[in-house]
């Protein structure tokens, strides 16, 4: 019973009271039932978590995150729908955004698919090119010493500056986007892997050498796993950069995709849809980061 006394539960009650007691003052507001369903769903999820979790700290964190979500929603709902304190055109109500979310789901899905194609193409190409190349170069000390200064010059160039040039030299927008994402993700992955290979503990290499391993085995079964922590941290930076570049490229020249969705509707001053787009991108990034986290834990389960 004691666990039920929490910020999340308090804010949930407050939200319910607010919906019932304070009348809506925004004529443009959508039907509010779906939002109530959503909040109810979140609350059920939270309560289930509360009773089923064995680790008290994790349950606590879930509760705190839920509370933050409720607090934001509460503030948003109060300033827009309930008291109408801000410009209705710039600040849509939560219910209106949710309604558009449902209404535009087909467009959003199509945009997601188009964006993911670009992202997957560029990012996968960066992984495939950067990792083996860095393994070989990092392993050959002389090559490493030659290439390292070059990476220090080329690496820090913000990849966004390549966008206009890429659009000019490549035949389609799709290709230039993939190229930009590739360049953006390549450097962090490449540089991290390179330095990771170079700093692999001498003792690990010696342990492999005394087993008389051939070169290929050394690179891919010893150096590669030993470098995996560095590769993953590079891959994470690369992914974040890829996302930034993807949306930037889409806002500049695409005719579909998530970045395009936001840019297109802001041109029409349809800020409700702009917010829909932003929230959707946030959700997509969250899901991808979640998957990457799981992958990282799996790949590095030998560390702890």
């Amino acid at each position, binding site marked *: 019973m004691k666990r039920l006394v929490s910020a999340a539960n308090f804010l949930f009650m407050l939200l319910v009271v607010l919906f019932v007691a304070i009348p809506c003052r925004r004529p443009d507001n959508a039907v509010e039932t779906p939002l109530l369903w959503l909040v109810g769903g979140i609350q059920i999820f939270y309560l289930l978590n509360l009773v089923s979790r064995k680790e008290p700290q994790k349950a606590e964190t879930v509760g705190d995150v839920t509370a933050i979500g409720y607090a934001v929603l509460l503030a948003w709902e109060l300033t827009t729908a309930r008291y109408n304190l801000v410009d209705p055109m710039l600040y849509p109500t939560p219910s209106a955004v949710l309604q558009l979310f449902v209404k535009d789901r087909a467009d959003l899905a199509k945009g997601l698919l188009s964006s993911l194609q670009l992202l997957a193409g560029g990012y996968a190409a960066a992984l495939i090119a950067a990792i083996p190349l860095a393994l070989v170069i990092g392993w050959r000390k002389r090559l490493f010493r030659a290439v390292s200064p070059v990476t220090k010059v080329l690496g820090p160039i913000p990849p966004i500056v390549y966008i206009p040039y890429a659009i000019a030299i490549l035949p389609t927008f799709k290709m230039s986007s993939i190229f930009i994402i590739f360049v953006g993700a390549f450097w962090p992955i490449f540089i991290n892997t390179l330095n990771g290979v170079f700093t692999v503990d001498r003792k*690990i290499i010696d*342990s492999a050498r005394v*087993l*008389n391993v051939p070169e290929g085995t050394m690179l891919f079964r010893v150096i590669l796993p030993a470098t995996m922590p560095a590769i993953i941290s590079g891959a994470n930076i690369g992914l974040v950069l890829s996302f930034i570049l993807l949306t930037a490229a889409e806002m500049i020249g695409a005719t579909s995709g998530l970045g395009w969705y936001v840019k297109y509707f802001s041109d029409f001053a349809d800020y409700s849809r702009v917010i829909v787009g932003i929230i959707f991108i946030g959700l997509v990034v969250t899901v991808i980061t979640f998957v990457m986290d799981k992958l990282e834990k799996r790949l590095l389960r*030998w560390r702890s």
Partner: protein
Amino acid sequence: MGRLPGRPFAISEVHNNMDAISFPENITLKNVSFSYGGAENTDVLGDITLSVRKGEFVSIVGPSGCGKSTLLSLVAGLNRPTGGSIAIDGVPVSGPGRDRGVVFQHYSLFPWMTARANIVFALQQARERGSHRELAKTADRYLELVGLKEAADKFPCHLSGGMQQRVAIARAFAVDSPILLMDEPFSAVDTRNRVALQELLLKLRDNGSDRKTVLFITHDIDEAIILADRVVVLSSLTGSVREQFKVPFSRPRHRTPLLKSPDYVTLRNGIIDLFHKDESEILAAGDTDAFEASAIGGVLS
């Protein structure tokens, strides 16, 4: 030693070799020197001449900085000597080989492989025939032998230092190289586990049909004596063999009575005296007040 490499060992040339006369020479180091290059004073090994017979257990001790680990890395083929020659069964060493298994103090195991996978990997590298499943079975058998059957699926980070070294030993015996090179393998392990590991090592070595030749680096004099047939003391001043001691105790050795026996104490003190002499000579060789240094040396020795 003016013997041709590879010729069977006929008459012992080391003054204190008494048994094992008919055993052939296995590891031969002739005037081996090594330095990391650069300035003149960086000589790590000056002039090492040493031979180890097949099936012999030789401990190498010496003050820190005398280059004992370097010596082992040369025999393992990880480094090439700057001068002199190293041969295994008369064949010059040109690099690592499957005739020599090595156990290090740290990182003998690959942290990203489970205990079993570490052994299987080593077996694969040793061109051991058999499917992955068969090799895994071999691995499990050796893990059981060192009392770690349950740890087969664990990663090294989930094993204690002593357990990790057990796995490393299991791996070395699974690969079954005739020569075992060990570089302070038990130094990072607490005393109780160290004793258990020493006994395990001797037990496994006695189990096999062919007794492995062991070159064992340690800074623990008790460990050196209890395990070995011969203790080689290196000098940090000259980077060469200072003296060799035959260990006369029969096997199996029983630790507690052995540590108390007068012969043991005499042998142990003899080695410790050498260590002190070495230290005082270093002092004397330094460019501090030579007179005072030699006076201290006189007191120490």
